[in-house]
């Protein structure tokens, strides 16, 4: 075995089970790859000692034939998950030095199943962003080089602090996406409030799954917008994502919105026939001025599913255009409430003040970055006296209409909906949103509907743009029917062919 980082999660699992490799070996290989990858800025904390201890324990369990489903597999964790005694800051300055005294349920499930933690991954501050540029720890670079860039040019740009010119991996789970795409970990946890798993998956040629709301526990995840947030995996194959989700998901008494339903064996759905399935193609997702390349990709995806025996029908989701504006009321409103807890008293940063109000105001002004401050102010405004009904209640009514659109289509016998994942391929660091924040928000136009309706969504790599950059397609399913998405996702993955990542120019 020449390079242990080239294995998929499923391959590594099988090699470990047959003792062809050890967990310590594959963990070391990934730690070394991380050491060489500083220019990508994916990890904000590397837990090398803990990783090797966990790997040794896994090797002992493998020897005793007591292996869990993820035994010995090194993975990365988005900085938004509470990890006991380990850096957990959602990449915000206001959580400086915070080390939780408890473990999130999702990560606890992963360790229960034998996974090995390599460290914490960079992200947009409090998951607010679509390019990983709002992180207090600086931007993340995608391992995909901009068109016609040489390795040397890429390396020079990666060494600069602003990384200008390199491509963003998307956001908010940008560190997770870049690390998995660059083979720094076998898979990673991510989270998705408006597209934060699926847009980075599309930008970096990965598989990303946002499960049904309630499928994964939110206990110990730093809250952004509680009615929209969901945990999910980023992985290099559909099978790997299925293996990860099975371990991450499950009932949890600590989160009252977490579903008590048992978790199916998602991996068993990978490779399942899609023959006879009915796939809806919603006309409202064909945006005015949409690039012909995205349109062609979408049509190609429909053709692949038809070739595999599914039928493709036109459907209508008439309230689609209102999803993104409604999201930019609901999400900031919930954020302004959730982020009220950062007050400089109980944890994190504290700026002295003459009185308690000044302490709050100075701490929050210094601790929150520009985008977070902006969203908190919008949220505060739409919840303030006199505006609550006009903005917040109205947006929640529109959310009901968006969900009804989907229910109608599924009631007509549609098994899943096929859409593009993003309006374009990855853009450059520093390229978007500096004049008008709405420019950045438009990235989530195809993904945000799914959060608003609580449905599962999967993005699979579907091909390369004319510039040679990854593009993804999104599948939207019925509530708690992630299995259908895994079956269809694998069909797209197989039809598109495996994407080959560029050589590690950053090392």
């Amino acid at each position, binding site marked *: 075995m020449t390079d242990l980082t080239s294995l998929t999660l499923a391959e590594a699992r099988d090699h470990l089970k047959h003792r062809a490799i050890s967990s310590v070996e594959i963990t070391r290989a990934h730690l070394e790859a991380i050491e060489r990858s500083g220019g990508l800025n994916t990890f904000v904390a590397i837990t090398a000692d803990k990783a090797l201890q966990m790997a040794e324990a896994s090797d002992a369990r493998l020897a005793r034939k007591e292996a869990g489903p993820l035994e010995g597999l090194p993975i990365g964790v988005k900085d938004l998950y509470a990890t006991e005694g380990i850096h957990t800051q959602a990449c915000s300055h206001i959580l400086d030095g915070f080390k939780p005294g408890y473990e999130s349920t999702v990560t606890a499930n992963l360790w229960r199943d034998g996974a090995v933690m390599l460290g914490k991954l960079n992200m947009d501050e409090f998951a607010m962003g679509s390019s990983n540029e709002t992180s207090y720890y600086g931007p993340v670079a995608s391992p995909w080089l901009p068109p016609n860039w040489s390795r040397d040019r890429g390396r020079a740009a990666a060494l600069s602090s602003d990384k200008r010119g390199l491509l963003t991996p998307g956001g908010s789970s940008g560190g997770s996406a870049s690390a998995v795409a660059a083979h720094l970990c076998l898979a990673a946890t991510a989270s998705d409030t408006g597209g934060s798993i699926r847009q980075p998956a599309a930008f970096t040629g990965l598989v990303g799954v946002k499960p049904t709301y309630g499928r994964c526990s939110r206990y110990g995840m730093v809250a952004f917008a509680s009615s929209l947030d969901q945990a999910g995996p980023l992985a290099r194959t559909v099978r790997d994502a299925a293996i990860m989700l099975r371990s991450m998901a499950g009932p949890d008494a600590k989160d009252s919105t977490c579903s008590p339903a048992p978790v199916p064996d998602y991996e068993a759905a990978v490779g399942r026939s899609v023959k006879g399935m009915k796939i809806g193609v919603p006309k409202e997702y064909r945006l005015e001025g949409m690039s012909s390349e995205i349109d062609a990709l979408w049509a190609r995806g429909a053709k692949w599913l038809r070739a595999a025996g599914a039928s493709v029908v036109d459907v209508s989701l008439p309230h689609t255009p209102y999803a993104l504006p409604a999201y930019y009321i609901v999400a900031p409103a919930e954020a302004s409430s959730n982020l009220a807890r950062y007050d400089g008293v109980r944890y*994190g940063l504290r700026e002295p003040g003459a009185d308690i109000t000044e302490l709050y105001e100075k701490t929050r002004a210094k601790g929150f970055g520009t985008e977070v401050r902006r969203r908190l102010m919008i949220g505060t405004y739409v919840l303030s006296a006199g505006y609550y009904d006009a903005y917040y209640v109205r947006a929640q009514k529109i959310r009901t209409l968006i969900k009804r659109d989907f229910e109608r289509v599924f009631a007509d016998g549609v098994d899943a909906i096929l859409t593009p994942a993003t309006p374009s391929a990855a853009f450059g660091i520093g390229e978007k949103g500096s004049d008008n924040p709405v420019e950045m928000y438009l990235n989530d136009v195809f993904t945000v509907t799914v959060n608003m309706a609580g449905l599962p969504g999967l993005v699979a790599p579907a091909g390369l743009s004319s510039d040679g950059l990854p593009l993804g397609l999104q599948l939207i399913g019925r509530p708690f029917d992630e299995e259908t998405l895994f079956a269809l996702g694998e069909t797209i993955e197989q039809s598109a062919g495996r994407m080959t990542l560029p050589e590690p120019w950053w090392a």
Partner: protein
Amino acid sequence: MSVDLNTVRRIARLARIAVNDAETPHLQDEINAILKFVEALDAVDVEGVEPMTSVIPMQLPMREDVVADGNIAPLVLANAPLTEDGFFVVPKVIE
């Protein structure tokens, strides 16, 4: 709808975020750009529509009304910037 400079200052105060006079005009522009973006919602007829409260219909789980944890004061205080005798320390709030 759009906000004026005084409203920006009032929102910042409500959100407990200190802003200085130099940054308020810029904040005003950005907030107004977002408010303009969400104006599209005015076109939707929401007459008789229930606002969403739970995105996935489910029964709220019940449990026994008993103490589930506690007696972890040191853990609760472990991350506090300033503590004394098992308490969080803040500037004087009562004169």
